[in-house]
């Protein structure tokens, strides 16, 4: 059933939830978490649909926070909260409240959400679009144990990845990372089948798809080898090629559903590697609510180090211009590591030996990013 409340408050919404549950005859349900979806009117429908599909696996209270745009000065001075309470068949296996915020209250969404959180149960905030660059500092994000962003939907995905690595707080996660779990698990399974050393990796996929960067960074981080990022028409990720001491291992997915795994010396095999829809991604995301250290480690590896790890990895600089200011220390470092990259490729044995040093120097720009002034100051005192 659906209860519409106009110009309302959180306590009236709570009352309506109790009323709704009574009316359908299930006074208490075992909901496991509160999912807060922060979105605009345009994306609300799809996000809510994905969430209610995912709720079959994780019965939850879903709060959809829609900040309405005020189009006139008069609208901006008036603040209003409208709510739509759905329980029973219309809300998957949990309950849903759609909150529409007009005017000033839109800046204080946390005051509406806080009283509506389930007692004790964990809170997950998901921004399908327009995620804040520092999710943990966002007033809504601060309420949550888990903050789900989606760089895939952002204007400049790769730049956002770089920013996120600076603001990472345990509990942050990104759907672009969730998307590559099947790839990661298949690549790990492929390496289970052989005992050899990986020397270099190539990750191929669409431009502007941060999943490719994340997969490349994860591989670079775990394997400690140069990783080449190359472009293709998609859909999504199309191939990962690993050059190993016992021949090539290739996982190739041209059509977005059935991939081919070929390992040198073994027959090629078809493996199911379908692109998943948002509901499946959200369901996976809600399965574990502890910090994802592997994501943190891959993210912190850094987009810039990835670019530096293979000559020609850096995408056309024109696109990077708007953020040039932020990336200053990196461009300084690039020629150095560029040279290392070139050296490393023909002589893979040396790479292994040099890796620790490479890591230390390459990490430096990322680490120093927040107190960026320091080295400059030192230089002047000298």
């Amino acid at each position: 059933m659906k209860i519409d409340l106009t110009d309302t408050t959180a306590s009236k919404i709570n009352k309506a939830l109790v009323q709704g549950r009574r009316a359908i005859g299930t006074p208490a349900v075992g909901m496991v978490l509160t999912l807060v979806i922060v979105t605009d009117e345009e994306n609300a429908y799809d996000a809510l649909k994905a969430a209610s599909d995912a709720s079959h696996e994780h019965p939850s209270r879903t709060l959809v926070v829609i900040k309405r745009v005020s189009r006139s000065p008069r609208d901006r001075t008036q603040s209003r909260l409208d709510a739509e309470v759905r329980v029973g068949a219309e809300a998957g296996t949990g309950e849903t409240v759609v909150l529409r915020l007009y005017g000033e209250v839109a800046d204080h969404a946390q005051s509406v959400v806080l009283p509506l959180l389930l007692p004790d149960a964990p809170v997950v905030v998901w921004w399908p679009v327009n995620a804040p660059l520092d999710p943990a500092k966002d007033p809504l994000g601060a309420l949550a144990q888990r903050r789900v962003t989606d760089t895939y939907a952002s204007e400049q995905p790769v730049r956002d990845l770089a920013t996120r690595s600076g603001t990472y707080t345990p509990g942050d996660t990104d759907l672009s990372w969730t998307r590559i779990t099947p790839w990661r698990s298949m690549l790990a399974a492929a390496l289970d089948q052989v005992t050899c050393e990986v020397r270099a990796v190539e990750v191929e996929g669409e431009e502007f798809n941060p999943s490719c960067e994340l997969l490349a960074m994860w591989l670079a981080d775990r394997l400690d080898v140069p990783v080449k990022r190359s472009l293709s028409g998609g859909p999504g990720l199309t191939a990962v090629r690993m050059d190993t001491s016992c021949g090539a291992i290739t996982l190739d997915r041209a059509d977005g559903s059935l991939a081919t795994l070929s390992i040198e010396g073994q027959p090629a095999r078809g493996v199911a590697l379908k692109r998943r829809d948002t509901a499946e991604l959200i369901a996976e995301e809600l399965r574990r609510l502890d910090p994802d250290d592997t994501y943190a480690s891959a993210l912190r590896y850094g987009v810039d180090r990835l670019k530096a790890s293979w000559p020609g990895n850096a995408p056309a600089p024109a696109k990077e211009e708007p953020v040039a200011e932020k990336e200053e220390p990196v461009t300084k470092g690039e020629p150095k590591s560029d040279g290392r990259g070139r050296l490393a490729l023909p002589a893979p044995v040396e790479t292994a030996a040099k890796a620790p040093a490479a890591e230390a120097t390459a990490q430096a720009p990322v680490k120093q990013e927040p107190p960026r002034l320091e080295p400059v100051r030192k230089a002047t005192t000298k």
Partner: protein
Amino acid sequence: MSSSNPLRDPADRRLPRIAGPSGLVIFGVTGDLSRKKLMPAVYDLANRGLLPPGFSLVGFARREWAHEDFAQEVHDAVKEHARTPFREEVWQQLIQGMRFVQGTFDDDDAFERLRSTIEELDKAQGTGGNFAFYLSVPPKSFPVVIQQLKKHGLADQKGGSWRRAVIEKPFGHDLKSAEELNKVVHEVFAPDQVFRIDHYLGKETVQNILALRFANTMFEPIWNRSLVDHVQITMAEDIGIGGRAGYYDGIGAARDVIQNHLLQLLALTAMEEPASFDADALAAEKTKVLGAVKLPQDLGRDTVRGQYAAGWQGGTKVRGYLEEDGINASSKTDTYAAIKLEIDNRRWAGVPFYLRTGKRLGRRVTEIAVVFQRAPHSPFDTTATEELGSNAIVIRVQPDEGVTVRFGSKVPGTSMEIRDVSMDFAYGESFTESSPEAYERLILDVLLGDSNLFPRTEEVELSWKILDPIEEYWDSNGKPAQYPAGTWGPVEADEMLERHGRSWRRP
């Protein structure tokens, strides 16, 4: 293998435990179990991305099938019984490794063909010589198949590969036959490569017994003789023996259910906390508690067996056991068995464990009820607590998996009146749709070589040591009591509890 894999990291909890390169050979692949449980479980595992690329499935049966017919049969079984939705790309991945070998169990040629099929799969699919043999065959064919596997070198583990045997109950029909069976199997497969399937142990709720007891603080302090009055473990079925007359007659409910499922449930409910959650530590605790089980002194008084008589079961008129097709009218086989056991250790001394199982009972249900003592003193007068029963924690194993806690609560109103209420945790509510089938979990564990959820030789033999004296007593004394189909068993079983002022729960 995976420890040296740089892409594997224990902290990376998103990556599922994928079995290494391997294949599964099913003997008796045309049977019911294989169609309804095993094939769908294999598909579900593949669909969840838990099978290795190149996983192979080999069927072995008498039927004259080509590989395509077999694939079609699996396809139909999967479509009908699988838990997860059918997806073409998963099917395409699976079908590449499907083979069928036609033959009988004494046919040497067929086993040679099986060997060459396995070798071909190693080349074509990269299974690396790792194969599990699932023996879904009648007990009498057991030794033949095992011997054939040995004779044709199919059980040999070469160069780091593994060969495993998966066997289903019954694990013998008494201690002697169980020991013989173990000898036959262990002659060919090493004990740690033999996996005895007790599908109850693959159920989420059963694994949850351990989580409930040892991951929480609020249950363990009351889990002992100071507060527990008694424990009831029930497994009831509403069906009769159906077409299984040949297997069932002479075996009976106690051997079929109590020896394996119920004694395993008892072990998990009563055991001490294991040092860790690995297979050895668990087996050690289970063995200890099974070894401490004490039989009642008067077997005539504290055990009951019964046979269902004609009656009405859920609105249908059904025949009695003795009128079933293929059953001798003078059969003494028990279709209902209830026994009282005690556990002789400091935690449980004096607390009776009542185990009961039966066919054609009220409804299909399996549960463990831990019933607590009444409050030693009540400040409320007797009229207030007239309707108050004993507190209980009930672990519902199937169906409607979950946990119920029963306790007294004041009835709203001006007078003081206390009545039983239940507090419920249902798997279906807190984690809908995510529970895998028991067979999925168990097949994956076999492929991973993880033996946590499989009873060991010692456990099987200890269980027979508990049951054998009861069966011997029943053989020489009296005959089964009759109970109308569709009821909760013979009156003798009720009397058995009433003597001590207790009663069976209606599950």
